[in-house]
């Protein structure tokens, strides 16, 4: 076969991309002054260190369970707070439900702002201004995840079929009625799925809110690690792990069922 009849070999850009990414990574490692060699040299020390976690000490279990219960309560309250705020904001942030462009932009930017500030940062600010305790944690989780839920709900609303909305508008329904009878029935599955996902995430995050003094089990973990009580830390990690895993599986199963 003559070469001219062969199709031109497509230009493969993959090596260029890989080279560029590797160069950037190498520059980052140089700039951050990381030395992975120390990790290799010290791997025996690391094994010894992680060996200290091998026999968890459950002598304070009752206290841990009280803290765990508080953690779950924070997650639950935070999620419900986010749910309420998200539901209120979502219709304004959905392009097909919003009264006008200005309101739409304001609602979108508000949701962006809530999402952009990480929950621990918000918790830090609330703890500094309201004092220690679980309440700042609830507020931080609520505000941060309201940004996510509001965005998810708004996106679900935007996917509602135009025909459905027009049909309900044709009956002379007001904007609230369109939302109730056109929007809500179409998005309720996604609504439940997203809410479960956020609840699952909040259970996980509530476990670390204690690091900044916002209640829950994180504070005990931090304290035990700072005082080198590794056996207590191991017990605490297990106490956190069990409900998180249980909840993860439950919510995954429920979300599968909703589909």
């Amino acid at each position, binding site marked *: 076969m003559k070469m001219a009849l062969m199709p031109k070999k497509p230009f493969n850009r993959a090596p260029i991309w890989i080279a560029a990414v590797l160069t950037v990574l190498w520059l980052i490692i140089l700039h951050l002054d990381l030395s992975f060699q120390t990790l290799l040299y010290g791997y025996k020390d690391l094994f010894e260190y992680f060996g200290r976690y091998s026999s968890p000490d459950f002598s304070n279990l009752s206290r841990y369970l009280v803290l765990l219960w508080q953690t779950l309560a924070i997650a639950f309250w935070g999620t419900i707070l986010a749910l309420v705020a998200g539901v209120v904001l979502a219709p304004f942030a959905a392009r097909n439900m919003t009264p006008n462009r200005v309101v739409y932009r304001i609602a979108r930017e508000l949701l962006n702002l809530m999402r952009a500030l990480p929950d*621990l940062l918000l918790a830090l600010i609330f703890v500094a201004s309201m004092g220690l305790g679980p309440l700042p944690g609830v507020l931080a989780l609520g505000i941060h995840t309201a940004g996510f839920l509001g965005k998810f709900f708004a996106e679900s609303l935007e996917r509602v079929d135009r025909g459905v909305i027009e049909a309900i508008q044709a009956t002379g329904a007001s904007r609230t009625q369109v939302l109730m009878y056109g929007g809500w029935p179409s998005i309720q599955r996604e609504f439940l799925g997203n809410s479960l996902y956020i609840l699952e995430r909040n259970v996980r995050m509530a476990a670390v809110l204690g690091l900044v003094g916002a209640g829950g089990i994180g504070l005990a973990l931090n304290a035990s690690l700072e005082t080198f009580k590794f056996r207590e830390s191991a017990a605490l990690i297990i106490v956190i792990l069990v409900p998180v895993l249980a909840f993860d599986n439950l919510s995954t199963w429920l979300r599968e069922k909703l589909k």
Partner: protein
Amino acid sequence: MTNCFQLRWPTRSGLPPFAPVLSVGVVVALLAWSAPVAEVNAGHLYASIPRLIDFLRNILVMPDWKYLPQLGQKMLETLEMTFLATSIAAVISLPLSFLAARNTCPFPALFHGVRALLSLVRALPEMVWALVFVSAIGLGPLPGIMALAFVTVGFMTKFFAEAIEVVDQRAVEGVAAHGAGWLQVKIFAHLPQAWPDFIGAIMYILDHNLRGATLLGLVGAGGIGYDMIMSMRLFDYNRILVIAVAIYIVVTALDRVSDQFRARVI
């Protein structure tokens, strides 16, 4: 003729629908039950309003301009940590995801094992791992990167595996019919089809990790969070707002960039 102006519920019986009412009732009962545990009460909230206003007045001061170069430095460090951790995780996740996908894993038992391991890795947030790694190898960005990469492997492998599971089996058979080996089938049939989803997952995780990296400093694992908690503890009020605004700007910027990128690829 029935009176159509009568207020009634839009159900067949005209009574409130049972399931939603029950679930709302259960939620409200749970809220009431857990309120004292979460210390949610209107009195506390009301009493803290003046302190919140006081705090806001404190942080709404002229920013400390001399701090800006250090802020830029720390922000760059945060971004670098995010990028490095996500890349390390991607390199580990790519081969692992073929074992975690039902249609490419050679042994069913291995598939279940990998999935269970991944859900264990995902269970704890990166902050907990950062705490553990900081206490193992000391302060600095390295434990932060390790913690981020570790948790990210759990999420990324799951996303990758889900993308691999939905590839078109006909392309796989087509490539295999040419006598391609196991690895060649994966590279030329599975990978190209799952690629857009991979990029989407990576971009989503990059966003998520940037948020995570801004916080790792709270436990001394590098990044902007360290400056945040220090200025909070030392009452350097003229820095707090600048840091918060910087985090907002960087997170939003990456959000927009990744949205654009994702829209182009998919």
